Each structure stands twice: as structure tokens, then as C-alpha cells.
């Protein structure tokens, strides 16, 4: 829909088209994007204090240890906070879309977007599961759908 149309709670949330700008990985996030391309959601766990760490870190943000090991997430979590955007960041994005912070069951938070439901279905505490959708240059982007 165009930004001028009146938003309603019945609008369905879908993945963005593959034409949005792809992510620009940093030196220490490459393993995350390589796993995502295989449709695997990964995070780091601190060998010393066992904290689950995201986004990718150089040292544990709690204890400072350098030994962080990549681990695979089951991709299950709950919505911690959400919004619905009706004015796109840039024209390649299709509105509405729903950025959300997800509490992953492994004990970390990540920003993503919720799809596969109506706007009116969004709620804090909603159970969700990860799924991946392609973007340019071979990247895949994790989204979350009501579980």
C-alpha cells in the first residue's frame, strides 16, 4: 500500500522485497551472515561466564572475556517490543512493516521484523519463530513469524 492510504489493523505483514539494500557485514559479523545464508540463526556464547551475546562482539560485554563461541539458536522467542512503520526509511521498503526486538529463548535480544500476521496481531509476549528471506548479493535476512 502507499504511505497515503489509511493504515488498518487488517494489513498483513510480509517480508521486504529482495531489492532492499543488503547488509554490510563487519569483520567480526561474517560468521553470522554466513550462517544466515544457510538459514541458520547463530549467536555467540561467552566461554567464561556463559552469557549469550548479540550482536556480534569482540569481548563478552558482561565479563570481558575474549573467548566467545558461535552457537546455533533454535530461533524461538517472544516479542519484547514492536512498532509498525508506515513511512518507509527509503523507497525500496514496502509499508507497513514491523520492526521488533525479540527475546530469544537462549537468553539474548535481537532486532528483526515480524511477518506472517496482521498488524492487529502484534503484541508484547507474542511467541515467534525465525524464518529467512533472501536479499541481494546472496544474503538472507531473519524474520520472525508467530509460532
Amino acid at each position: 500500500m502507499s504511505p497515503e492510504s489509511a493504515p488498518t489493523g487488517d494489513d498483513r505483514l510480509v517480508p521486504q522485497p529482495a531489492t532492499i539494500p543488503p547488509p554490510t557485514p563487519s569483520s567480526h559479523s561474517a560468521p553470522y551472515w554466513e550462517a544466515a545464508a544457510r538459514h541458520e540463526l547463530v549467536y555467540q556464547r561467552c566461554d567464561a561466564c556463559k552469557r549469550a551475546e548479540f550482536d556480534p562482539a569482540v569481548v563478552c560485554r558482561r565479563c570481558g572475556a575474549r573467548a566467545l563461541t558461535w552457537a546455533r539458536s533454535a530461533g524461538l522467542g517472544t516479542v519484547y517490543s514492536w512498532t509498525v512503520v508506515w513511512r518507509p526509511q527509503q523507497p525500496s521498503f514496502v509499508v507497513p512493516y514491523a520492526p521488533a526486538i525479540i527475546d530469544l529463548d537462549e537468553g539474548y535480544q535481537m532486532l528483526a521484523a515480524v511477518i506472517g500476521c496482521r498488524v492487529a496481531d502484534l503484541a508484547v509476549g507474542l511467541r515467534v519463530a525465525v524464518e529467512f528471506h533472501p536479499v541481494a548479493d546472496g544474503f538472507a535476512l531473519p524474520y520472525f513469524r508467530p509460532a
Partner: protein
Amino acid sequence: MHPFRDVVVAGVHNPRQARVLEGETSLSVAIDATLGALADAGLDVRDVDGITGSLSSDLTYELGLGPVWQSASALGIPAVMEAAAQIATGLSDVVVVAAGQAGVYTERASTAPWTRPNHEFVAPYGMFTAAEFALIARRHMHMYGTTAEQMATVAATVRNNGHVHPDAIYAGRGPFTVDDILASRMVADPFHLLECAMTSEGGCAIVLARADRVPDLPHAPVWILGGSTDRIGPSYRHAPAWDLRGRDPDGIPNGYVGRRAARRAFATAGLGPDDVDVCELYDPFSFEIIRQFEAFGFCGEGEGGPFVMDGTIGPGGRFPITTDGGLMAFSHGGQTSQLLQRVIRGVQQLRGTCTTMQVEGAEVALCSGGGAGALFNDVLLLGRERP
């Protein structure tokens, strides 16, 4: 002895602000702002021996200030604090803090460039400033039942302050009711268009001086009673969670960023929230006013929504807010000038020179900048009485 006893806010100036300043550049606006603030202080460019702000290097050259102490603090209150410390420690006598922006936001199909850094973990989800702050507001609504009407009351109050201010970009656009705010189109739920800052062009400048250098100021001197800055991390690169904390698991969460800064500012000043007469709060989005009242200790956690109702924040209320119309109606001239303009309005309130929304007899002003959606929040306390 108070650390800023000898630091006086000598001059302030807002040149013309507009949605688009035809023919202007960021530098030309900053030059106008700097010269205006010096004139306001009764000083000459040759009196300046320090300058900070994002354009300080260009201003040093173009205004022929050199050799001069120069820094590049860019975000409003941190720059004022740096300039004040420079004078308080005897390293400079007259320091300019200047900002200006024009001709930067031209591609209007996208949100403004400073609202959307291209960071790998936020940009692919279409994030920009309004969505970042919406994630903070939504969490507060969930925890405490904060309502759309409470947030819209904030927006109507700030926009109506701008409606009557002749120099505000949105002068005469109102008045707005709560229903008007809620009827505007949704930008990033829960924020309607009229709950969001505008985008514009503009600039401003402040001149701080050692008190004995400016014994015959044209205006009443205004003093720095205290201030501090809170940072949690870089803006718009990590998930803006309310509960984001540093290493201390019991530390202040991002949702209350600014609390540590407010405590330090009040401690330096020897004051508390009840001593404040006017709150020139940073208003990027309606909810941020509610959050800052809680973070700064004006009310308890979760009480900010009810706190802003019943006239407390409006004209004649106990804590009038953002009396020039703020980022919603006065100006939001890019990345930095609107952060400094909260301080300028606080100075005008304490001088008693506001032509609109003057708080009669104001002795103490609290000015702020930043917000939880951007992982920073700064506080400055200004006073009419020398500390």
C-alpha cells in the same frame, strides 16, 4: 567553591530557521549564528579564544579566529559542558559553541540521512529514528499502561508553544488538540506524524565567557549550575531495548538513560527537581518527555504518563516544557543545532526575554538533549543566581 562559578552564558543566537534555507550552507548558517551570539554578548570575534561544535575547524578559518583552542564536540550539552570546563580550568576566556546545517537533506523520498546510519543489524529492517524511539515507547506502554492520549497531550503542548512563537518554523500552524494529534497519520506506531520532530534547516550559537571578561553584559547573566552527559553506546546500531544495560546487572537501564546525568547535575547544583521552574526538554518524540520526567526524578517510574496530564506541563503549569516549540515546531536543523537550542531557550527564560510562554520569575531551567531511542541523554541546569 562551585566549579562553574566564574563561567557565564554571555550570548545566544538563533538565526532564521526554515524547512529549507534557500541559498544557505551549513557554514553560512553557523557564521550567522556565531556573529549573532557574539553581538548578543557585546563581544567581538577578536575576543574569542576557544571554539567547539561540528563546524569549529571551518569557523576558525573563515572567521580568522586562529590561533585558538578548538574542539569538535557536536551534540549540544556536551559541547556546552566542554566549553564551560575549558573556562573553569583557566584554559580559555571566551568560547563559542556553534552549529548549523543547510543543504544536507535533499532526497526527501527517504527519511533524513542522520536518522538512518547504514548499520548491518538495523538498516535491513527499515529502521530510522522514529522506529527506534517507538520501540522504547511501546515497552513503556506495556509495562505501565502509558496511553496514546498522554503522549498526544505532550505533542499538543509542545506544538502549541510553537504555534504562538513568531520565530518557530511552524508558527501559526495550530492550535492543536489531543484529537488533532491522534488524527494525524501514523509514522511508526505509536507515533503519529504530529508526535514526531520535524526536519528543517537552521543553526544557533552560544558564547560562554569568564565572568570578569564580560562585566557589562547587555543582558542578565545566566549561570551553569550543573550538568552531565549519559551515553550507553552508538545511536541506531544496536537494538534500542528499554532494558539494555552496561556490565552492572543492577545498573540504570537504557530506558532511564539520563538519570545518572541528572543526579550529577542536581548534585553539583545542590538542587532537586522541585527547584526547577521550567523544563526545556528535548522533544524528538512525544513519549520522550514522559520518559525524561521519570528518568530525571520528577516523578516515579511508570508515573510519567499521568504526570503530564492536568496542565502540569502547559502554560502556567508547575513544569512548563519546551517553551519555544522544540523540535516539533521551532526547528530541527539537522544533527546538532536543535540539541543546542534547548539550552538557548533556557537562557532566554532565565533572562526573562521570551516574547511568548515566558515563565514569570524563572530562576532555574533544566535543559536536555538526546533520548533512549538513541542511547544518550544529557542534562544541563541553568540559573539566574551566580552559584
